[in-house]
């Protein structure tokens, strides 16, 4: 999970997807565990706007986003990819403590984010930097979080990538995966009780659907119809565990039926399909209540920087998914529309890398929190017990601590 527990040799992101080792322990790895179903999307009940080449499939209607919006979406997907590359390197070179890659998952979270209004609430997982950026959070703030600096919303208290910001209506996750699904549902229910028109979105992985929290949230949602969209990113893996060991249901979407919650399965590497399904769910929320969306996608990177995918999946499996890389598809879609070309691409990447450079340097230069700050925010007003403990701790710290 953590740097000094993991192999620490510097390893570029690219290596992640081209490694050759195939053996686990004494035995061979089996055939791919999560075979890419996107080429036969219809057979799997997976809704698509575009195919691998960015051409319309005629299945889900193209949501007809304005050109500017389409470009902005793609640019964000690229920026997010560049952030992931950089995060990996920063961790491998010992400058951030920990990194959770999101390579391959750029489409789901960016498209779902823009399907919601800025004053809607989003409950985030740990692979969703684009959400914050799309809501106007400056890049340097994200890196300050990755570096655990004092001057970021959480004061350096949380693991890198466990992001959020109240000013952007983005609630940080509760490190236990899945725990916040009912929180999102409860918040949506609260808005309904208060008569507000706020809508809610919660991201979580397919592995998290196994927890009781998923069950609680979906069950309450069916009965009380809060305006919440549950977005299950089925990326094939929960750390080393494939979906076949996670559940025996055919899809994650259909789990909604068990709770009377409407549901849909979409291609999570097709940003427009994600947008269309999410936007519809958002729009229907006041009338129909919750929707469960399963976005079928793939974690192309390591689970975290402490992970070693060689132990559990084959390069062949990864390779098939790479052909469905959401960045490639979205770029082709834009090119088909004559909205994008090679020069744009080069300029964009250069811009992203430059922006990241600036943000990294600014963030890294920021100070760490001081020990006294540990005691803040436990209660609104500290108890005498905490004040006494703070005083004692401060008095006892060695110089330099």
């Amino acid at each position, binding site marked *: 999970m953590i740097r000094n527990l993991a192999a620490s040799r510097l390893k570029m992101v690219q290596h992640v997807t081209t490694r050759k080792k195939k053996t686990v322990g004494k035995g061979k790895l089996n055939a791919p565990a999560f075979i890419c179903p996107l080429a036969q999307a219809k057979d799997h009940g997976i809704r698509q706007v575009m195919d691998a080449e960015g051409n319309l499939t005629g299945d889900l209607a193209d949501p007809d986003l304005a050109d500017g919006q389409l470009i902005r979406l793609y640019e964000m997907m690229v920026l997010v990819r560049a952030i992931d590359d950089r995060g990996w390197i920063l961790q491998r070179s010992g400058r951030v403590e920990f990194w959770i890659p999101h390579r391959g998952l750029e489409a789901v979270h960016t498209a779902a984010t823009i399907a919601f209004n800025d004053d809607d609430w989003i409950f985030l997982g740990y692979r969703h930097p684009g959400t914050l950026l799309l809501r106007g959070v400056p890049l340097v703030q994200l890196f300050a979080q990755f570096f655990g600096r004092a001057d970021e919303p959480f004061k350096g208290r949380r693991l890198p990538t466990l992001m959020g910001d*109240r000013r952007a209506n983005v609630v940080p996750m509760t490190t236990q995966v899945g*725990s916040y699904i009912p929180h999102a549902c409860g918040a949506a229910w609260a808005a309904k009780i208060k008569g507000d028109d706020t809508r809610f979105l919660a991201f979580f992985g397919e592995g998290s659907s196994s927890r009781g929290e998923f069950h*609680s949230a979906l*069950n309450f949602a069916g009965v009380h119809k809060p305006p919440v969209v549950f977005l299950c990113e089925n990326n094939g893996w929960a750390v080393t565990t494939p979906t076949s060991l996670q559940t025996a249901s055919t899809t994650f979407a259909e789990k909604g039926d068990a709770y009377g919650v409407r549901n849909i399965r979409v291609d999570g590497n097709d940003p427009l399909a994600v947008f269309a399904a999410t936007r519809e769910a958002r729009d229907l929320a006041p009338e129909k209540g919750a929707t469960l969306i399963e976005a079928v996608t793939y974690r192309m990177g390591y689970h975290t920087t402490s992970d070693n995918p060689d132990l559990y999946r084959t390069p062949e499996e990864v390779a098939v998914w790479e052909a469905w890389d959401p960045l490639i598809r979205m770029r082709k879609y834009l090119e088909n529309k004559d909205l994008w070309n090679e020069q744009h691409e080069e300029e964009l990447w250069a811009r992203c890398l430059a922006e990241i450079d600036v943000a990294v340097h600014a963030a890294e230069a920021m100070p760490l929190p001081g020990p006294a700050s540990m005691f803040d925010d*436990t209660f609104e007003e500290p108890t005498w017990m905490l004040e006494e403990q703070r005083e004692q701790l401060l008095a006892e710290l060695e110089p330099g601590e």
Partner: protein
Amino acid sequence: MSAVKQRSRKTTMLEAINAGMAHELENDPDVVLLGEDVGRAGGIFRTSTGLQQRIGSKRVIDTPLDEKGIVAHAVGMALYGLKPIVEIQFSGFIHDAFEHIMFCAARYRWASGGQYSCPMVIRAPSFGGIKGGFWHSQSVEAYFVHHGGIKILCPSTPEDAYRMMIAAVRDPDPVLLVEAVPLYRAMSASFVHDGVPAEIGRAEIIRPGKDLTILSYGPMCHQSVIAADDLADTDAVDVEVIDLRTLIPYDIESILKSVKKTGRVVIVHEAPLSMGFGAEMAAVIQEKAFGYLHTPIQRVAAPDVPYHFSIGDECYKPNAHRIGLAIKRAMAFEF
């Protein structure tokens, strides 16, 4: 109307809890009550009788049978700005929500750098005395002490129940309200239903004395007073009984003041001995008042076994007799 309100009324513990919730529900549209069976039927103990009829089923909510789900949804409600009161049907069923109470509600403020908070009240009907067997007689308060972020209140009188309910609802942090089931109908008292909240963090000397300090909370306070009265007659010991009222943050000033005066301490709770709240009390007192103690701090508690159905009420939970023996032990101690 307000004149009527100011008249003092004889109120059972049940009615006091009901009145406290009613007061907050009626005066603050952000307050909601949710739990199993709390709405239509007013809760299995009837603590919420009539509230759904008065406030409506939107804010007094019968939930599915899922303690974790109830608390977890209340966490979300609180994040958004409601002030949920959650009823756990019996405190024995609270454990499924442990993660959401201690590691979500009690931590959202800290973990979000102060951006979010989870003000909410978790009502935990606790303690034995109703032949409830081990699940329906649990004392769970000690599990909630081990890290900050949540306050713990335990009223031992109807007036405290009323005022602590109000204080808990208005508190900016999550509050565990430990309710004494055996007192629900057994105890009544007269007080003015004036909407004035209790002060959180203040203990009360419910029987002054100079020889020995008893620290207790909930129904055991009453047993302690009985024991003190008995021994005053037979043994001429003058025992001071303190009702802690707030477990976190406990009232260290009142505690130390009394202990430094008497030099002898007996801590009484109904929860099992090991790692009961008495452990923390004893540890703190011996640290902060070491030089004042004439005798070791005694703990009177249930043994480290579950609450027995058929003989638990009689033999398992501490009573005035056993408290009396501890007092005698403390008084007779010699190095």
